[in-house]
């Protein structure tokens, strides 16, 4: 059989809509709803805030004047309230994050395996997460009232004279941290349960066969294997604690004596009570930077730890 060589003919032109182009087009089509949402509701406002933060813009006068970094300089060097607010936010985060994560991990360890009542308790601890923040705050304000509150009445039965939780500056912070932990711990509990369930049972069995007790198994096997999940949980809990607004607004309104005035609530006050949108935007950018730095530090520590 002989082969035939065609001469004088040109190869047919490839169609414009090649398989690669078609797949690319379909790909963009699928991500476009999310992408459009991201551009309109995240990137757009973020750019707007950067611009506002460099301006003096009072909502009442509707006048916007470019003032450079003056808002930032004012917040960082001249406004004593700012550092007080930062201190409160750090105290809130430092109290909430370890308490929330420890409690969530303890609950997850207790509830990660099937057993009698496990579903009930998981539901019970997760229910506050999906409960209305307003309802939660109203109930707790009622429970934490001075002498008439249920918490203090219970303490009185064991001879403890409880403080007026939400009216005393030091105790108000304790109360908002504790009630926030109780509201949100279920979320981290679920994340930890998922992480624990993804650890193969063989690791525990192997360790047990080699003589490890429960504490050694946790310390030497489970905890290191939970590290990636712990990092994620720590980052999102830290970010969440710096962004807390509704809980403070509903429980204490930042009081008493600004004892629970945290950054997100202070930004709200500046923007919507004092109408200093430019200044509030600068504060928001500072908050963004703080949260970003904290997240990066946590990730770097994790990478250093696992290296």
């Amino acid at each position, binding site marked *: 059989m002989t082969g035939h060589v065609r001469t004088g003919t040109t190869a047919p032109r490839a169609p414009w809509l090649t398989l690669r182009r078609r797949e690319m087009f379909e790909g963009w089509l699928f991500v476009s709803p999310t992408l459009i949402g991201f551009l309109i509701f995240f990137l757009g406002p973020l750019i707007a805030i950067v611009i506002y933060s460099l301006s003096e813009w009072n909502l009442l006068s509707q006048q916007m004047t470019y003032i450079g970094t003056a808002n930032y300089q004012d917040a960082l060097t001249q406004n004593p309230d700012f550092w007080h607010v930062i201190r409160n936010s750090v105290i809130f985060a430092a109290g909430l994050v370890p308490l929330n994560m420890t409690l969530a991990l303890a609950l997850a360890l207790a509830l990660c395996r099937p057993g009698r009542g496990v579903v009930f308790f998981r539901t019970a601890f997760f229910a506050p997460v999906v409960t209305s923040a307003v309802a939660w705050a109203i109930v707790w304000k009622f429970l934490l009232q001075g002498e008439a509150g249920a918490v203090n009445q219970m303490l009185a039965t064991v001879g403890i004279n409880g403080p007026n939780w939400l009216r005393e500056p030091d105790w108000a912070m304790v109360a908002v941290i504790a009630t926030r932990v109780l509201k949100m711990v279920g979320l981290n509990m679920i994340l930890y349960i998922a992480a624990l369930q993804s650890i193969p049972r*063989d690791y525990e069995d192997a360790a047990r066969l080699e003589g490890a007790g429960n504490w050694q198994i946790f310390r030497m096997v489970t905890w290191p294997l939970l590290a990636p999940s712990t990092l994620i949980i720590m980052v999102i809990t830290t970010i969440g604690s710096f962004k807390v607004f509704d809980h403070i607004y509903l429980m204490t309104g930042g009081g008493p004596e600004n004892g629970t005035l945290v950054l997100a609530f202070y930004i709200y006050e500046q923007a919507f009570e004092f109408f200093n949108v430019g200044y509030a935007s600068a504060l928001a950018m500072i908050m963004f930077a703080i949260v970003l730095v904290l997240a990066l530090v946590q990730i770097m520590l994790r990478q250093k730890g696992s290296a």
Partner: protein
Amino acid sequence: MSSLKLRNVTKTFGKTKVIHGIDLDVLEGEFVVFVGPSGCGKSTLLRMIAGLEDISGGELWIGGRQVNEVQAARRGVAMVFQSYALYPHLTVRQNMGFGLKVRKEKPDSIARKVDEAAMTLQLEKLLDRYPRELSGGQRQRVAIGRAIVGDPKVFLFDEPLSNLDAELRVHMRAEIASLHRRLENTMIYVTHDQIEAMTLADRIVVLRDGRIEQVGNPKELYAHPDNIFVAQFIGSPKMNICSADAFAPELTRAGIPMEGVAQIGLRPEHLRIVPDGGLIKGQVALSEYTGGGSLLHVEMEGAGRFLVLSEGQEGPQPGDEVQLDFDTANLHRFDAEGRSLQAAREPVPA
């Protein structure tokens, strides 16, 4: 001396009984393989011996001591898991020394024992690597090394080769056999692969639905299966089974006693294709070329389909009529309950 003894051992999950009164003696230094289909209870039984599952009833003795209520770590057993269970955050050295560290041995003693085990398994160059940096076979060796380090009385293997590819499985099988010869420890090995069982075991325990079907050395199980289940489970391709009625006249003429015989069995490798004068005949339905020969699917009149191993390159083709012959000593006869009717026999040497 018996290294491990099970007496009427049972296991119940809730209301479901999964192990039904197992009796077994394993001798010192013996390599015993538990084999059976998925869900037969072989891994559960192994985990009960290890102490990872409670024993619902009966007695378990290891090294002359009843250990029903003894913690897993104090039973003197080590286990190699199907998944290897190597801690991903620890190096090979740390994985192998984990048990010794937990037992608070001195660091220099741990290092010495790990080095010795590493040398036995040729793992010296891998000691500072993490499990993710190892191949499947290397991980397997580390898992075995971790078991060796603790110097256990009994090694337990739970389907240790099932995650390896075919070639590596053959290689590791040979390594495990050679390790057993060197260490001379008692080993109990679980697998669903009868080839693994036949090649490794001093004795095989065939399990079905939580009961022992037969215990014996590989040759004994192959030559004298106690029942149809064992007959079909041991040997590859599996034994042909058909109703005795299909060939009763031919077999009676050949002088084979057929009284009480309900089913007969013939292994594919025991059937010969002959030009004429065969005891039974059929038509080739399918021929699978295997390299050295062919595996024929032969449709037998009134007896269903038989598998026949045909050697050589020019075997019968689909549609050909074939006559089959066999040595009557290789015919297996079973009663209506599927029990073997073979005459009482001498034990087959291993």
